[in-house]
């Protein structure tokens, strides 16, 4: 910084705007002048003098038009911030302000990004405030805050904050430790009501009805919101919440209103979500690969699903991508060493993709040239072609947390 007059820059703070414009080039000239005195290159006769650099105005970027190949990647355990990456280039485009333990909701209509979060007046002390923050998806500016009664603090859950298909209603799970769901009107930006939902969590939008949720008694609960008071109905029990639980980070297809659940042993359940949901009989992912079915008994080593966000669904093709590892029952958080690609309609595993490094989270873009994003503890996110399974590149320091893409939930 030799030759840079600090007093001169101070002066620019107070002089009128017109003078400030001329002050900056002067400071730059001073810089260039000092360089000319010391640089051997400058000692040679210059054919043409270097052009004087134009003064700049600082500004804030806006996001370009969204691409289906963008991914929204959360930092790892207890770290905030969701980075937006272009999956074609690996370039970071911006960050959504997802505070610690918050949940990101991407508006299905693309108009806003929502963050269901909890903050305190003195950082993590003082008065607790639970709210949904509304962000502009182009500027990423905060545009509104919608206060609500409470929400659960937990990491790595994609179904604790879900948005109705029309983008008008948000459903936020709360555990206090009684379990309930907050209904928020996004059109009016107003909290509407809390629905008590004992023993249930892990939400699904239920178009025209309200929402559904998985329950500890092995049923699927459906909450109808059309009447004066919410009504809760349950399916018959179809799974065991303690002997072969369903991963609560399941997949949901808005286009067909179908949910796909996977259990610890590898059973795949498909459910049509409606006023009265219908759950089809489960089938084994291992059997679909020509292997013996998963079991709960100890000492039985088999391929099992696992991780934190262990499956991703490509809606248009009905391809389910599941992170699988070899292990015993109760190894459900172990990272996947292979991706199993399941054709849901044919009930067949059509491809097993070995991974160079194990992965805990997986998501797939929803376009016709889909990309797979996978990550885990190591802080890098890997990008694969979801049809050729070619590993394209790693995005270093992308974050090791949940992965979201547009149109996936």
């Amino acid at each position, binding site marked *: 910084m030799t030759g840079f007059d600090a007093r001169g820059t101070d002066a620019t703070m107070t002089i009128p705007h017109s003078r400030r414009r001329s002050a900056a080039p002067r400071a730059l000239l001073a810089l260039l002048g000092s360089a000319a005195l010391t640089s051997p290159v400058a000692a040679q006769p210059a054919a043409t003098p270097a052009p004087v650099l134009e003064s700049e105005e600082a500004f804030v970027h806006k996001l370009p038009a969204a691409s289906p190949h963008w991914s929204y990647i959360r930092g790892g355990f207890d770290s905030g911030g969701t980075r937006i990456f272009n999956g074609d280039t690996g370039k970071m485009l911006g960050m959504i302000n997802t505070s610690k333990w918050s949940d990101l909701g991407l508006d299905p209509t693309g108009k806003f990004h929502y963050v269901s979060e909890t903050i305190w007046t003195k950082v*993590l002390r003082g008065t607790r405030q639970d709210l949904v923050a509304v962000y502009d998806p182009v500027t990423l500016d905060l545009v509104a805050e919608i206060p609500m009664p409470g929400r659960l603090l937990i990491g790595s*859950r994609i179904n604790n904050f879900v948005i109705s298909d029309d983008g008008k209603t948000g459903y936020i799970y709360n555990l206090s*430790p*009684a379990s309930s769901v907050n209904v928020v009107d996004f059109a009016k930006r107003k909290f509407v009501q809390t629905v008590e939902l004992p023993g249930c969590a892990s939400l699904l939008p239920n178009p025209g009805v309200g929402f559904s949720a*998985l329950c500890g008694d092995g049923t699927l609960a459906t909450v109808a919101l059309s009447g004066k008071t919410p009504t809760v109905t349950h399916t018959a029990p179809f799974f065991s919440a*303690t002997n072969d*639980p369903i991963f609560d980070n399941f997949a949901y297809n808005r286009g067909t209103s179908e949910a796909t659940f996977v259990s610890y042993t590898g059973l795949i359940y498909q459910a049509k979500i409606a006023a009265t949901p219908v759950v089809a009989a489960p089938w084994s992912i291992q059997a679909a690969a020509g292997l013996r079915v998963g079991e709960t008994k100890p000492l039985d080593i088999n391929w099992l699903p696992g991780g934190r966000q262990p499956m991703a669904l490509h809606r248009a093709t009905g391809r389910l991508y599941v992170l699988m590892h070899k292990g*015993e029952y109760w190894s459900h958080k172990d990272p996947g060493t292979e991706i199993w690609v399941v054709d849901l309609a044919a009930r067949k595993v059509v491809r097993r993709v070995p991974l160079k490094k194990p992965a805990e989270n997986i998501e797939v873009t929803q376009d016709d040239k889909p990309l797979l994003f996978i990550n885990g503890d190591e802080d890098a996110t890997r990008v694969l072609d979801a049809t050729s399974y070619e590993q394209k590149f790693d995005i270093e320091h992308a974050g090791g947390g949940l992965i979201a893409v547009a149109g996936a939930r």
Partner: protein
Amino acid sequence: MTGFDFDGFGEKLLRKFAGRTSRRSMLTRLGATIVAAPVFPLLPVSRANAAKPERSAEAKTGFARNAQTKDDTKCDYWRYCAIDGFLCSCCGGGVSSCPPGAEPSPVSWVGTCINPDDGKAYLMAYRDCCGKPSCGQCNCDNTDRETQLYVPQLNNDVIWCFGTKSMEYHCSTGVLVGKAQ
């Protein structure tokens, strides 16, 4: 695990909480949480007593077969069969006690672990210590009988800092509640 049926107690428990608790008052809710706290980890005991789980080597989980009873600063210490987070015993606290200045949560998630020394199963209450940033030492994630959020008291991802002054998560302990059989 095999023959060990937690089914239903979670929902019963939550229905009790929900029934007692007014949604309109945060104070009431917190009060109910705190009052109910001593009951919370005890409830599974009666259920566990009712069940007669098989404890043969073949019936043990991978964790139980490899667990040790000497070093409570290691993830394979027998009580930690369903713990997730930083061990308080590595953070200035102990296996069932919080580090200085941290506040124990009055509620917890629960687990059932087998003590390799006597072969018996014990009920564990995993209590988070709260009010400080993440300890960052001895990170473990054991998953015996750990289930999903719809059975929250058997889920170890929840920030179990309910009813504490601050909900900031610091570390986790394993408090022995009693014999399960």
